[in-house]
């Protein structure tokens, strides 16, 4: 039997516990929430709970019933205090008895998470400085949403149980003549891959989930950093340190449980990207990495998957839609090769104002919906430049005949580039500092020319062998793996390939010196 209570009086714990005794119980688990003396850095002297009583009790009973059904517990009760409480007072008590301990622990966790998340209870904190503030209690992580445990690779996130009860309402967009019920069905059937769940990815994921895109793939290898929050507004301070793909999947489940999410917790690479793209109707590239953008471009062209590209720099951004149809321009038609990473600039190095990726990401979401719904788009392909400081935007038409067409066409260029990226990927090692490579047992070989070395010397012990002479040195006798280093990673990759043929355990520093952390 389950019971949920709100009370202004102290809780009789012995009586509560006694009421849960059951001959079939092999495990009892209780949780107590206490009033602590601080919250978010402020000293608290006490607090006051206020509830919408009828609704809180009804919802509390429902949570206990859900826990009983979900975990097969025998009895569960919960008591939540209302009114004034002092430091150390018990604010909430949960007790669960079950045949085995595992159900008891999990049900207890479920109940407290759901109470914090769903109950209409407000908390007013009294601070030592004398002021007070109402604090939302409904913000919490729910461990059960992460069940079952993650394995490596990519994950399907099943619809949470409440998806059955929530009916998405798309009426505001279905009302548009160009969308209608038919358009909504297209969205429900659509599969969209979003690469990068950061500044650009956040609005893309949010709007596509809200619009009811049936399946969203999300790729991101990073964990959330506090420095992301000014622009990645679907996360919050409590999420710092967690994997963005998990946070994004959870956010989509909360925003629109009808959307299925597939997460990829490693960046895509030349070896797997075309296979992944083949499973999607559309890709939106939202990383801050030029190499990723070029890789996505090549895979889009080779798999005929439309790709929406955007990138930002400080106060401005660029947007390009690659339709991946024959004769239509791609990213390499504009800039055949990416500039060295050090020259391109990133949010880390150059800085960015939060709304800038917000605007460009929102534009990407718009372009994605236009493609999925086949809405009118300008006939000519263009690079769109947006400057949010002076409020200007210009579309520069791209002449496909002046791009890859002069080098065999986008498909041939993409195939060559992907093959090269694949070969280089198998030769590369990534390090932020060369000391780490030395620590890992590598011998460092600087393959730059003497004048380059003089201009930017390495501050670690290294052999100096210009890349053109690499084959003449008997590096095979080193008996250690060799890490070759040049300015951008190109010459070192080439040299590593030559040395591999001689049987040397040779590797190339990915991105070259330009990719090392500035010391």
């Amino acid at each position, binding site marked *: 039997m389950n019971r949920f209570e709100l009370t202004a009086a102290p809780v009789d714990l012995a009586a509560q516990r006694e009421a849960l005794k059951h001959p079939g119980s092999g495990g009892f688990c209780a949780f107590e929430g206490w009033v602590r003396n601080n919250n978010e850095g402020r000293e608290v002297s006490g607090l006051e709970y206020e509830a919408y009583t009828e609704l809180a009790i009804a919802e509390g009973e429902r949570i206990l019933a859900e826990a009983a059904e979900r975990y097969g517990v025998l009895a569960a009760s919960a008591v939540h205090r209302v009114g004034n409480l002092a430091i150390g007072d018990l604010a909430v008590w949960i007790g669960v008895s079950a045949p085995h301990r595992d159900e008891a622990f999990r049900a207890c966790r479920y109940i407290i998470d759901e109470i914090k998340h769903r109950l209409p209870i407000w908390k007013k904190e009294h601070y030592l400085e004398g002021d007070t503030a109402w604090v939302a209690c409904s913000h919490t992580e729910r461990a059960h949403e992460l069940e079952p445990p993650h394995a490596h690779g990519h994950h399907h996130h099943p619809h949470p149980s409440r998806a059955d009860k929530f009916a998405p309402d798309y009426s505001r967009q279905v009302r548009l003549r160009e969308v209608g019920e038919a358009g909504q069905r297209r969205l429900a059937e659509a599969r969209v891959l979003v690469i990068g769940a950061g500044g650009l990815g956040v609005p893309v994921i949010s709007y596509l989930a809200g619009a009811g895109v049936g399946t969203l793939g999300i790729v991101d290898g990073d964990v959330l950093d506090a420095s992301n929050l000014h622009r990645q507004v679907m996360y919050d301070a409590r999420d710092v340190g967690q994997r963005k793909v998990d946070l994004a999947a959870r956010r989509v489940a909360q925003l629109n449980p009808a959307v299925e999410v597939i997460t990829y917790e490693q960046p895509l690479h030349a070896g797997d990207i075309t296979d992944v793209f083949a499973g999607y109707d559309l890709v939106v590239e939202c990383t801050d990495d030029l190499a990723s953008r070029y890789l996505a471009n090549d895979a889009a062209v080779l798999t005929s998957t439309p790709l929406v590209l955007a990138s930002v720099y400080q106060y*401005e951004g660029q947007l390009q839609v690659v339709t991946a149809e024959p004769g239509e321009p791609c990213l390499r038609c504009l800039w055949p090769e990416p500039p060295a990473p050090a020259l391109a*600039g*990133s949010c880390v190095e*150059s800085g960015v104002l939060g709304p800038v990726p917000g605007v460009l990401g929102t534009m990407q979401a718009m372009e994605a919906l236009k493609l999925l719904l086949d809405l009118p788009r300008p006939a000519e392909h263009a690079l769109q430049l947006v400057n949010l400081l002076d409020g200007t935007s210009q579309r*520069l038409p791209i002449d496909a005949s002046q791009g890859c067409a002069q080098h065999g066409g986008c498909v041939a260029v993409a195939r060559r580039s992907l093959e090269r990226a694949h070969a280089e990927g198998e030769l590369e090692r990534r390090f932020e500092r060369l000391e780490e490579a030395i620590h890992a047992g590598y011998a460092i070989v600087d393959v730059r020319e003497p004048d380059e070395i003089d201009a930017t010397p390495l501050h670690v012990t290294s052999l100096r062998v210009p890349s053109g002479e690499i084959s003449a040195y008997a590096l095979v006798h080193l008996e250690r793996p060799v890490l070759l280093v040049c300015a951008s990673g190109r010459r070192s990759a080439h040299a590593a390939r030559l040395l591999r043929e001689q049987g040397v355990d040779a590797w190339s520093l990915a991105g070259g010196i330009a990719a090392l952390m500035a010391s």
Partner: protein
Amino acid sequence: MTRVTLQYYAQLREQAGASSEQVSTTASTLRDLYAELQARHGFSLPVEALKVAVNKQFSDWNRLLAEGDTVVFIPPVAGG
């Protein structure tokens, strides 16, 4: 001397310290013009890393400058 309006994006805007400027130049082609500006503003990007547009159309670097042209230099940017 040819009088042209220049627009800069991304790193070029930052290194030039302005998003646009008007200059009088003796350069005859866009390539020469960029070399001149590179010397003046210390632009770090090589010409191969850039796209150039004249009067709202992408252009070849060997195009000859004409009086009153609006020239835009555009690097690819990486941020996200």
